[in-house]
Every structure is written in C-alpha cells, then in structure tokens.
C-alpha cells in the first residue's frame, strides 16, 4: 500500500509540470501579441520593445516558463485583461466558493438518487420500474446540459412559475434548486446505470445463492452482501463524475447567471481574457488530478488487488 501511495504521489507533480507547460506553451504561441493588443492604434515599435522588455517578453521561452512556474506556485496568475488592475486570484476566490457549494450539493444529490434508483431497478429487474429507470438513464446521458437547462427553465419558471429563473442567493435559497437539479442529471444517470449493472452482476454470484440457501432474509442478503460488493466499482466512476461536473458547471452557471467560476471562465473564453482562461484551466486540472488521486487511493484501499497493478 505504501509503495502504491508513493508511486501515485510522485506522478502528481510530474503531471502538474506537464499540464502547466502545455497551458503556458499554448498561451505563449497561441494568442495574438498582448503588447499589440494593449497599445492598439497607438502602436509604436519603440514603445512596444520597451514594454516587451518590461514584461519580460523578450527573454527566451524557457526562462519565461520558469518565471511563470514561480509565479503560479505563489498563486499569482497575473491581472485580468477585462477587469483591469485586478489580480486573477482575487477575482477567482469568491467565485470558486460559489462553484464548490453548487458542485458539492449537486454531486451529493446526484450520487444519492442515482445509487438508490440503480439498486431499486436491479431488484425489480425486468419490471416496469426497471424499464423506467433504464430508459431514463439512456435519456439522461444523451440530453446535453444546454438542452436540459432551457427546458427546466421553460417548465419550472414559465409554464408552472414556481422557481426563480436565475440569479444566486446562496446554496440554501430557492434560486439554487434548478441549477443543482440540472448539474445532478449527469452524475445521477451515470451512477444509476453503474449501480444497476454492479448489483445485477453481484446478485448472480455464488455467495448470494449461499446466503439465500442458508435462509437469510432477502433484505439481509441485499444489505450485507450485495450492496457492499456492488459499491466497489462505483469508486472508479467518481473520476467520470469529476469530468462531467467540470463541463456541467460551465454551462449551468452560464444558463442560470450564477456568479461562479464556470460563468467567469465562460466570460473569459468569449472575451479572450487569457490570464483568466489559463488560471481556470490550471485550477481545474489540479482539482481534477487531486480528485483522481483520491479516487485511486480509495480504490487501492478498498480493493487490495489494485495495489499490485
């Protein structure tokens, strides 16, 4: 276990260095000349050269990359182009908090509902309940967030106007209900599908037959034997959950006008605000890497066979 832990932990900084290199290289070669953009029609080669020297743009690529690494380690992502003279990190922090609350509640609800529906469907295999869950899962996986969002708005803010159409008054307000629901659809579908498949597989095993044969009650078979073993593979799809949340957050926050990181990044993508785009990409990549590390470790902890791999 220890060797596995160390191997996984050593991979993390390597990964982060590569990720930061890719973002830097794309930010370096990709966008138009920032000096030209800054000067606009007052462009003068002499001033441009002086500014480039001041910002360090005339130094070699690798020197610039190392300096950039030094800055991002201190969480200094530079200043936003749109919000002038405001450091990106100060702009990001309050938005990050909103996004974390939204994601935490949505994934909690999505996983809880998904797992319950999956278990129910597996226990009622072939019956009407099962078919409803299975087709709901197929539909939930096919319907994109930016299709489901406007439809939810249309249903619950227009046809039956019970919920506010957007805005943000904190996670415990009515304005959070629709975004949480929207963001929870993805995890719900994935977890329901996986739980159902896992339960069906486990229910066919010999030890389940043994438990039934020795006269154990069905309730006990399900809770003591089936559920515990069916839950192990669910850990791997926690990784998928992270990925679907990232994408969902971008779209959900944009559709509902929630002042979180997703909407901020959306604005930055539209306005080509590169310091913000790079900062968000790095932050999400780090969060994603940490999340996956946690999932791997948990998996290794639960299932000893993984540690040797």
């Amino acid at each position, binding site marked *: 276990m220890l060797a596995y832990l160390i191997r996984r932990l050593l991979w993390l900084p390597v990964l982060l260095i590569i990720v930061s290199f890719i973002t830097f290289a794309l930010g370096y*070669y990709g966008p138009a000349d920032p000096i030209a953009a800054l000067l606009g029609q007052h462009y003068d080669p002499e001033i441009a050269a002086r500014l480039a020297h001041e910002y360090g743009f005339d130094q070699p690529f690798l020197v610039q990359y190392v300096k950039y690494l030094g800055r991002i380690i201190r969480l200094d992502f530079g200043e936003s182009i749109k919000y002038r003279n405001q450091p990106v990190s100060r702009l990001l922090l309050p938005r990050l908090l909103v996004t974390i609350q939204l994601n935490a509640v949505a994934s909690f609800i999505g996983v809880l509902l998904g797992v319950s529906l999956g278990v129910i469907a597996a226990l009622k295999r072939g019956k009407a309940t099962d078919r409803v869950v299975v087709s709901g899962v197929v539909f939930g996986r096919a319907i994109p967030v930016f*299709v489901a969002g406007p439809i939810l708005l249309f249903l619950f803010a227009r046809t039956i106007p019970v919920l506010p159409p957007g805005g943000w008054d904190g996670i415990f307000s009515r304005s959070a209900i629709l975004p949480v629901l929207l963001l929870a659809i993805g995890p719900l579908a994935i977890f329901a599908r996986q739980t159902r498949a896992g339960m069906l597989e486990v229910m066919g095993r010999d030890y389940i037959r043994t438990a039934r044969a020795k006269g154990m009650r069905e309730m006990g078979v399900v809770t003591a034997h089936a559920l515990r073993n069916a839950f192990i593979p669910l850990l791997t799809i926690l990784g998928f959950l992270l990925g679907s949340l*990232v994408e969902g957050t971008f779209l959900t926050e944009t559709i509902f006008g929630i002042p979180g990181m997703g909407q901020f990044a959306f604005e930055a*993508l539209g306005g080509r605000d590169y310091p913000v785009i790079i900062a968000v990409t790095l932050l999400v990549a780090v969060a994603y890497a940490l999340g996956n590390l946690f999932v791997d470790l948990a998996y290794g902890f639960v299932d000893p066979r993984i540690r040797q791999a």
Partner: protein
Amino acid sequence: MSTQAQADLRKEVTDEATRPRRSLWGSVWARLRRNRPAMVGLIIVILMYLTAIFAPLIAPYEFDEINLENVIAGPSLEHPMGTDELGRDVFSRVVWAARSAAFVSIAVTAFGLTLGIFFGVLSGYLGGWVDTLIMRLGDVLFAFPGLLFVFFIAATIKPGLTTWLKGVGLGDVARSDYLDYLVVIIALSLVGWPGLARLIRGQLLSLKRREYILAAQAIGVPTWRIMLRHLLPNSMPPVIVAVSGGMGAIILSEATLSFLGIGLQPPNPSWGAMLFQYYPYWRHASLWPLLFIPAAILVIVVLAFSFLGDGLNEALNPQLD
C-alpha cells in the same frame, strides 16, 4: 462401413459445402438487423448524413440569408420552422447545421483514427520505450477533465493558427468561417486520439498471442500478410464500436463548443450555436418553440448514435449477454 452410412456422410459433406456461407460482416449485419433501436438509430444517422450531403438542395434558403422585413415569424409555408431575429430561415439553418455536424464528425474521426492507428500500432508492435512514451503522453491528455482541454485549445490556438496559415501561403483558409471549422477539428482530434491508440494497442497485444496468429507464423506467412489479413481485421470490431459511439460524442462536443462561443460562430450554422442564440427565448410567449427545434434534433441525433453504437457492440460481441 455400410453404404447407408457412406451415403449419409456424403450428404452431410455436400450440405456443408453448399450451405450459403456467411462472412463475419454478414452475420454481424444479420444480428444488427434484429435489434430494433439500433436499426432506428442507423436510419436516423443515415438520414442526417444524407441531409448534410444534399443540404443545398433541401434547404430553401442560404443559411446566412438575412431578411430584416420578416424577423421572428412563426411557421409558415415559406418558412416551415419560422425565422430568427435576423429573418433567417430556421429550417434552412437547421439543415445546413447538419452539414457542419457531419463534416466535423467525419473529419475528427478521420484524423483521430489516423493518429490512433498510427500510434496504437507503433506502440503495440514496437513495445519498449516507444510504447511507454506514447502511453504516458496519452495519460497526460487523459489527466485533463473531458472537454476542458478542448475548450482551452479552441480558445487559444485561433490567432496563432491564423498567423501560421498566412505564413505558409494558405491565407484563404484563414478566413474566419473556415478557421472555426479548423479550430474545432484540431481541438477535438488532439483530445480524441489517445483513447483510440490505447484501444488498438490493447487489441494488438492480445491478438499477437492468439493461436491462429502463432499458427500463421509457424507455417511461414509473411509478417505484412499477418498484419493485413489477420491482425487488422480482427482488431476492428471494438474500434468500430468506439468510432460509432464517438461520432455522437463529437457532434455533441461541437455543439457544446459552439454553444460556448469557441466553436463554430455565427453566421456559420451549428445546432449548438443556434441553441445559444435561442435559449434566452424560453420566457417569450411567441418565441419558445424556436428553442425546441435545435434541442430536439441534437438529442435525437445523439441518441441515434448511442443506440447504433450499443447495437454494433452487441452484434460484434455476441458472447455478451
């Protein structure tokens, strides 16, 4: 041996020889045809690509034909799905957007498959440090969450790509309407290949040790013939399943990028861009139907691809339950 037994045996042998032979693909098609959702999916997919090919004949108007005299009109004989806020015919835009989706899905699949087969075969065949290098590179790309890397590439490469294209004398391609397609295709291909490379590598590694490959080697079949006649066709089934599921995902990704404003941008027709344009209409009594047109089409197409992919998976791997 009695004559009766001999006659039976002769009959059996003749029956065996005259029985219609079914090729691998023939039996796959036979199994697929029995799967109703997969067939519905296949028909929708074929319809989509036909619409894409014949878009200029089907669409009554150009996708960017503006008519400020007739904005935001409901369905009529001239405009079966109504018009948008610039008076553009919604039906024509939906049809032309099918062409965008088809073009992007085919181009990304072609590029992704080329890179995937190249690196997968290289990795699986050479092994050693080449294998390690390619697989680690894939790991790094996998370490980015899903579409985030695509967002990042799509948002950053445009200016650099324009300069580069002008530099190599392809200034015509750098026009913004072509450039959008190029950006989307590059971003999605770059992220798509590691999955395919990994799949093909795994297939090659497991096939290399099969008895029929060893048998072919033992009787002296040349390596290139083993590759072409045995390894390649036998590694295809999972690739076909991945590609058919992948094309739906590519169409969805293109729509997401366009919805976020970093994919195809107006006036280029895209279902995602149309959704972004129409989604604020949910509150308007007369406009909300506009919202459901690109939404419904997108969901139907994505579902069709997923049913077809599942059907192909079952048809190609009959041992699955």
